[in-house]
């Protein structure tokens, strides 16, 4: 599969994402420069974590207007797969490709630590192959990760299985106590209605390398690759 990882000025998880996809998951990867408008025929686009354009305004607010994003939006609207991780999630919300918004963490501080998330359902490629009973240990690292959406939106998202992951404890219990940032309904990741655009605050690419002693994040990326490849094959057949 061919991935495109967008590099905004200020992206700082772009190298990690490329390394994980290329060296650990053995995928083809190209970097997509923010000033470019050529998507190089990629199968999937990843918007990595970081502080695009410094994020001095509101996270993702400026990146959303970069030249490459016009193409990313077109790509997503045509059904192309897009995953936003952390800052990438914030950008996708700012761009209107995902519902809701990401606010400052409830404690008003940056938080970096391992947390646990549980797949809410198995309806999207990103959680299709995951065990709904098995919590995954994935790091978070953000200052603005408190997911928010209106009750009406949430209700639609629930009905349509657009909630991908929720924060929980190491035995899969979902409660406010295990909500690291105050996200509504413990939401850690969401997708769009057509389930081709995904956003999540936790960093699966930081939990993919055996040498770091935690590979739970690899399961998420592997699910994505496998399901999308299957679809691609059936499409060509």
């Amino acid at each position, binding site marked *: 599969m061919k991935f495109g990882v967008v590099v905004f000025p200020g992206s700082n998880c772009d190298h*990690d994402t490329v390394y*994980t996809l290329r060296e650990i998951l053995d995928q083809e990867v190209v970097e997509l420069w923010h000033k470019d408008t050529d998507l190089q025929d990629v199968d999937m686009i990843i918007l990595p974590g970081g502080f695009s354009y*410094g*994020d001095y305004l509101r996270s993702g607010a400026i990146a959303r207007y970069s030249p490459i994003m016009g193409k990313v939006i077109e790509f997503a609207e045509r059904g192309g797969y897009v995953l936003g991780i952390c800052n990438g999630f914030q950008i996708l919300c700012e761009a209107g490709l995902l519902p809701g918004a990401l606010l400052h963490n409830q404690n008003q501080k940056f938080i970096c630590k391992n947390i646990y998330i549980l797949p809410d359902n198995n309806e999207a490629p990103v959680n299709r192959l995951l065990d709904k009973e098995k919590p995954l240990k994935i790091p978070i690292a953000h200052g603005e990760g408190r997911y928010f959406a209106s009750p009406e939106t949430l209700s639609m998202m629930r009905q349509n299985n657009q909630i991908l992951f929720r924060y929980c404890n190491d035995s899969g219990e979902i409660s406010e106590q295990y909500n690291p940032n105050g996200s509504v309904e413990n939401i850690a990741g969401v997708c769009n209605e057509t389930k081709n655009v995904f956003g999540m605050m936790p960093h699966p690419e*930081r939990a993919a*390398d055996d040498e*770091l002693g935690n590979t739970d994040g690899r399961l998420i990326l592997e699910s994505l690759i496998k399901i999308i490849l299957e679809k691609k094959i059936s499409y060509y057949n």
Partner: protein
Amino acid sequence: MSDTVVTLDVAEKLGLNSEEFDKIKEILGRTPNFTELSIYSVMWSEHASYKNSIKWLKTLPRDGKQILAAAGEENAGLVDLDNGIACAFKIESHNHPCAVEPYQGAATGVGGINRDIFTMGARPVAQLNSLRFGELENDRTKWLMKGVVKGIGDYGNSFGVPVVGGEVYFNKCYTTNPLVNAMSVGIMKKDDMISAIAKGKGNPVYIVGSSTGKDGIHGATFASADITENSAEDLPSVQVGDPFQEKLLLEATLELNKTGAVVGMQDMGAAGIICSTSEMSEKGGHGMRIDLSKVPLRQQNMEPWEILLSESQERMLVVVEKGREKDVEAVFEKWDLNCEIIGEVIEEDRLYFYKGEKLYADVPASTLVLGGGAPVYDREYKEPAYYKEFKKFLIDDVPEPENLQEVVKVLVKNPNIASKKWVVEQYDTMVGTGNMSTNFPSDAGLVNIKGTRSAIALTVDCNSRYVLADPDIGTQIAVAEASRNIVCSGGKPLAITNCLNFGNPYNPEVYWQFVNAVKGMSKACKKFGTPVTGGNVSFYNQTSIDGNVVPVFPTPTIGMLGLLKEKNNQMTMAFKRKGTMVYLIGKSRNDIASSEYLTTWHHIEKSPPPYFDLDEEYRIQKVVEDLIRFSLVLSAHDISEGGLFISLLESGIPKCMGFDITTDAEVRKDAFLFGEAQGRVVVSVSTTRETEFIDFMLQQDVPFSALGHVTKGEIRVDDVSYGFICDLTKDYTESLGAVFQDN
């Protein structure tokens, strides 16, 4: 301002003494003009010239086959990691800015030290920091600490380099003068090093990165009094950081290096353009002709001396091969950064600073810098009275508490001992996907060198109470502890960087502390084979206590780099499972001197440093190194603040395991549990390899003893329960956050 008539009075206001003023006149063969005087005043300041410390710094061991850049010669130390890979690392202080403006002070400290690393062509992969504040009950301390931690976090998190280690201590001597020491570590190909040098007649000199403003200009007080009444508002004494610009500058610098067009490069930190132009020129035996009107400014009406001295952040000076200008400019255009030619390299040892047609300064470059014309002083020193008094301490005069469980409850919440989770979770510790200690906590931070079999091990250490008690021994302990932390993580110590935080060097008693600290550092660095690769000296750190100005505890922070040659030798401090045996490598001593227990429980501040024997320490570390190499232990954790009990607790916390141990009848129980005698490591051993472990240990020339075993959760000492690990964990990990009440 530029046409102010220069007199001795003006020179003194800029911090120069009459002897120095005469020397400048002698060098120039005339009286300097105001711009030139400003240049000398800042280049000959303590900060830039090391005039009061260099004599002693030169006595430190600085050679070793692993050393690729001599101490002080480049922007940071450079150490060979084999396989063509090198590691650049350095620690620096930002104490004074933090005392005034903790957030920006700390942020720019992080920015500055990272710039030192990537100026050399290395990509920063890890940061550490060493912080000291006053007592935590104090509102000022809370304000300073919140600001410093947020400053470090906001800058480093955005810049994208993980924090992999650090220390935080509290003592009232740091109340008005916190210490903020930041260390950065980068990895590069050995052959890619960019030198801080200017050479090649006619080569263009570029300034790249942020525009220059009036921030951080020296003598702000002098200037603000003299220009106009209102100009003070335009002259913040602390620089302002922009991590986004720094991130762009990092990527552009590394890309620039690939063009092969770079002759030399230096970042602009203290003393701005004047420092980088003079140091690079002196190193290359050349000079420069600079036109200050070409420097991109963010403010209007800046005078030449202001442009020269501005400490605006996120800037670099680059000398490029003539003819390669287009390649260089393309890189900076890609990253949307300023890139302006401001002058050229000339053959003579001279710096000419023009603004347009007018010449504002004409000085020999070599006379400005350390090792060239900058003054070197021999300061007098004398042993302070307290030194002998501290030695009178006798353990027998200290009553042993009846209820040691109560002591434990107090110690685990002691901010010098308790978990620094509240601090650490505000830093991105995992960006870069290299931090190997996140899921396997270890005494030193381990960072993966991707694509190799190796990792680097990093730590910063200094217990300044020990250094106060005996600067020589205390500093030896700081080096020994750093080495011990690296060894306990499976690494081999390679080299150090240091940040020497002291009081006023003109105070002979402070200078005595400095001299003896340097002597102690020399001894220990020689023993552990860890040469000094550079660092920074910060004098004039003092605090007012009850109306008396007292120097801070002498705090020579040691940043150590080690190599884990084979990643599968990685060692964790965490107990693995119940039933495994717990041993002490080293010997329990009847010693509570300078311990947190002694100061917290008994409120005794005057005692010598804890037991320490350099040779014995070295032998113990060698044995621990072998135990790990032969896979004879499951965990290793050194004993430091809080003593054996706290060390066992810290080993138990990651997997929620307790321990059941027996004390030694020959040692007081409080000393056994809470004493801080050096040269001790707690290891756990699987029952299946215990015989092999004992056989191995019996052949070694170091003491060891069985302590007990790991339990499912209960903590027992001599068959008395000390509670359960989960309860103590809560007190240990949450107490610091509770002080701030914002978790």
